[in-house]
């Protein structure tokens, strides 16, 4: 009887061990990741309210160092970037110039600058699945820079990856029209400032 009980206990312990092993492994890996992060000075445990702000500040500096002065000023003043289209929509438009508006963490909006007609929304994200601080979301300016680099570097690839929708799905068309109006006014004022500055210098 005792032998049977012992044998049963051993079998139960062995089965439990098999079941618990993956869980123990996961816990061990988490502990190791937290320890490594602490050693790297990333401090996962403590919530730092200034972290997102510092991240955004770094992202803005990186964006500024990559884009043209005009584009940087556009983003700083209006909160969006305009990128001229190169190829992806050319078949449908037969050479008519088109452009994209890039907003942070919103779909890319394609439109015709000559008429202001909105063409499509391209929903695209850049999720970092390693989630270093519990979120897969890049800082706003990094999201904008990622879209800018992807459009400049391989427009077709980005557009084919995105989910395409008609305008108005996520971004309010009235808001986009207002932004286009603001962009037009901003460009005129910038041009005027440059004209004045150059005539003053002369």
């Amino acid at each position: 009887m005792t032998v049977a009980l012992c044998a049963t206990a051993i079998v139960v312990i062995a089965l439990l061990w098999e079941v618990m092993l993956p869980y123990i492994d996961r816990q061990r890996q988490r502990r190791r990741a937290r320890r490594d992060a602490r050693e790297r000075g990333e401090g996962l445990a403590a919530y730092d309210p200034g972290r997102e702000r510092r991240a955004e500040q770094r992202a803005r500096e990186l964006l500024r160092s990559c884009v043209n002065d005009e584009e940087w000023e556009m983003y700083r003043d209006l909160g969006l970037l305009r990128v001229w289209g190169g190829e992806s929509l050319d078949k449908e438009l037969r050479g008519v110039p088109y452009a994209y508006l890039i907003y942070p963490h919103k779909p890319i909006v394609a439109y015709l600058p000559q008429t202001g007609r909105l063409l499509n929304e391209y929903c695209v994200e850049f999720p970092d699945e390693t989630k270093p601080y519990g979120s897969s979301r890049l800082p706003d300016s990094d999201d904008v820079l990622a879209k800018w680099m992807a459009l400049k570097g391989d427009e077709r690839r980005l557009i084919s990856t995105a989910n395409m929708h008609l305008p108005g799905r996520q971004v309010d068309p009235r808001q986009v029209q207002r932004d286009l109006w603001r962009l037009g006014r901003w460009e005129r004022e910038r041009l005027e400032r440059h004209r004045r500055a150059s005539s003053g210098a002369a």
Partner: protein
Amino acid sequence: MKFLRMRPGYGEQLIAEGDIEVGEDAERLVAEFRRQLEQGMWAAIPVETETGRREAELVRAFDEIPRTADRVIFFPRAAGGAR
């Protein structure tokens, strides 16, 4: 050459740095480049054209990186957003 990686909650992080002309550095950079791509990153290089315009190139292999590039920026690959 510097390898930078965009990170949520942090901004960009320097993940590797080295002289592409030095054998040991180049090997380390190649290994890091492959590691980032295996992790699902896209690699972009900010460039300046002859007219002074700033553009970006996406590269899929280490050999495609111009020798004159001073930084490569890694960011998570694009995925279709909200349906």
